[in-house]
């Protein structure tokens, strides 16, 4: 299935894009999405354990990802 991953700030710069489309297997988790992102050009610049949000909530690497979910990689936050 196809999943779109949103990218922001330094991650968007690293990938050269505000999002990437990935093909992942049904039953995939956040860990699988991250592995697929690392194969993408620029994906080697991701830190060891980036924060990930699924449907606008912080998610664990074990969180399942379904078709239609909003997945986002969250660079270190710097609000305030």
């Amino acid at each position, binding site marked *: 299935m196809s999943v779109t991953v949103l990218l922001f700030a*330094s991650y968007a710069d690293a990938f050269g894009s505000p999002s990437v489309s990935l093909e992942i297997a049904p039953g995939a988790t956040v860990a699988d999405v991250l592995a697929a992102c690392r194969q993408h050009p620029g994906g080697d*610049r*991701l830190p060891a354990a980036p924060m990930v*949000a699924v449907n606008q909530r912080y998610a664990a690497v074990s969180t399942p990802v379904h078709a239609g979910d909003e997945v*986002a990689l*969250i*660079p270190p*936050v*710097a609000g305030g």
Partner: protein
Amino acid sequence: MTIDGRLVRESIDPSALVREVARSAHGAIVLFLGVVRDVNDGRAVAGIEYTAYEAMACSELRAIAREAADRFGSSDVLIVHRLGELSLEDASVGIAVAHAHRDEAYALSRWTIEQLKRRVPIWKQEHYVDGTRDWVDPSGRSVAGVTP
């Protein structure tokens, strides 16, 4: 009663924030403003651009306001974060809290800004006087090769 979080693009008005949380049950109001400084980590700053994962940032700001109000009881909490290009002395964040007593108002204000800095998906790119730009990473980790 105000328990809310918002993203804005215009400048933050301290009096307007205070007005929204004031109620006759409250004896103390604490307003925190985060302001763009001229120096960060020894580099001369000319301005800052704030961006966000807007839908999620909004819901995190609201969740923090709600958790803060629940923590201390009978409080009004308003969090406003600005996005876009900010100049020196512009406020990037305004947190207005009101409570019957000042102990709780200070504790609430402090808890709220620390949560915001930890959780809300907002990023800042500093523009330096020497013309360079850099994503700010308060955690000290950075994306290899992305910063100039």
